[in-house]
């Protein structure tokens, strides 16, 4: 199939009668990740139907949609987290910097270092704050000595906006931190292995508004250094943190465009109904 025929400009609405649900951003150079005609099946059930999308370096991309629309499933395809589910089957093509991530020679451990993930519930290792961050760089051999490792730990915690709060107690357990701090620790842990892409699956749903605001500020600061994709149920959050928004419904990508356009003047009726609270 000639993929070029299916490529849409940002905000150009997807033709729902077309079998392919495709959207692409062409305005900011080469995309970091590209997905083309991705289908996902759990056993016989199709969870994702022909999704094509590009993720860029310079913008935060938000995936929104009602529960069960496939946004988390699709996110998990982007670093092969679905491999851990035996009945899950992914077809189509997902590339990171032009490299097919589902190719047989792809090292999945390496891939997940390049495409890091932050989950809904903060999940620090039951180890010290220091070791939570140092773990990844150690196993990936990113540091040659203690000094270098110290540096990675400090800079990762700095970037995650946590250094000031924990620098005097790096030996305390990561699990002893507050929920918001734990989530920032998880983000620092993802950053420590120098990823290219960070996937966040509802990273604030377990946090209070202040901790949420800190994560959102952090996302804002990390923008440009990493390609960031965030799945969120909170539309206000998508509106606040992202520059591009993709709306998923029943496993298809309904609309993908500039966040400001999606929230002020969506092209598709389904998107409009969802974001205005008319989804029944």
């Amino acid at each position, binding site marked *: 199939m000639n993929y070029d025929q299916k490529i849409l400009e940002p905000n150009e609405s997807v033709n729902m009668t077309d079998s392919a649900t495709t959207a692409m951003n062409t305005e900011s150079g080469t995309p970091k990740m590209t997905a083309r005609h991705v289908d996902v099946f759990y056993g016989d059930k199709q969870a994702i139907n022909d999704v094509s999308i590009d993720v860029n370096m310079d913008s935060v991309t938000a995936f929104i949609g009602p529960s069960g629309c496939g946004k988390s499933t699709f996110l998990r395809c982007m670093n092969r987290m679905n491999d851990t589910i035996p009945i899950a089957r992914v077809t189509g093509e997902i590339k990171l910097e032009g490299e097919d991530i589902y190719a047989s020679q792809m090292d999945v451990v390496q891939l997940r270092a390049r495409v890091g993930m932050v989950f809904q519930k903060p999940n620090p290792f039951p180890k010290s704050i220091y070791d939570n961050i140092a773990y990844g760089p150690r196993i990936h051999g990113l540091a040659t000595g203690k000094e270098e490792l110290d540096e990675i730990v400090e800079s990762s915690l700095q970037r995650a906006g946590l250094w000031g709060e924990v620098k005097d107690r790096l030996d305390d357990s990561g699990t002893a931190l507050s929920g918001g701090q734990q989530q920032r620790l998880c983000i620092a842990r993802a950053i420590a292995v120098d990823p290219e892409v960070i996937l966040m699956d509802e990273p604030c749903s377990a946090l209070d508004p202040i901790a949420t605001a800190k994560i959102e500020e952090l996302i804002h600061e990390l923008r440009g250094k990493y390609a960031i994709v965030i799945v969120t149920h909170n*539309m*206000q959050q998508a*509106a606040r943190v992202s520059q591009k928004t993709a709306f998923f419904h029943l496993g298809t990508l309904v609309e993908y465009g500039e966040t400001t356009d999606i*929230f*002020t*003047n*969506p092209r598709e*009726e389904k*998107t*409009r*109904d969802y*974001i*205005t*609270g*008319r*989804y*029944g």
Partner: protein
Amino acid sequence: MNSGTEHTVKAFDSDINELRGMVAEIGGRSEQAIAKAMRALENSDLDLAAEVVREDKLIDDLEKRIDELTFQTIALRAPMADDLRELIATFKISGVVERIGDYAKNIAKRVPLVTQTHRLRPISLLPSMSKIASELVRDSLDAFARRDAELAMEVNRRDQIVDDFYNSIFRAVITHMIENPKDIGEAAHLLFIAKNLERIGDHATNVAEMVYFAATGEPMPERTRGENPTTPLDEALSDEAD
């Protein structure tokens, strides 16, 4: 604007419906104020003129209530897309319509000062001018109620007729002033009344522009003028009419 589908949160719909009702009411009251002020002028009915001035208070109060509820709804419901556009439009329309009421009140206030103006020929144009200006007000608010972008565009086009009326009256009044210097005082009031009607037409187009934005999410395309101004006076008048 919206598809008519109800919100999952029904209280949101009732807020929006209440606002739509109040916009319809403030629109109706302003239209009535224009009609009454003009009738008072034609019949030199000072009581009716006083009534228009008194009733303007109701329009002012409605504007306040609309603004409060819009503000509240935006704060509490965090509206998006067409809902957001409609609420922003409501907020702006209420202010504009309140101004229309003020112009009607201003016309009513001049009634006692122009009781003798029936000798002035240009006054015969005012009822037709006011009829069109009020039609614009009514149509712009109908367009809001029906989310009708086409009707909004049409209001915008028809405002040219009101502008043309104003230009003719302006010339006629100036001529009259030159010929009858003793009437200058009353003629000036007459000119202000025409100016008020012209401003009412402009405000109706402002409403129409907000309706267009709320309905389509895009700004209304610029109005294209029928003819180019030819003399400095034409130019000045046409600038004023903007």
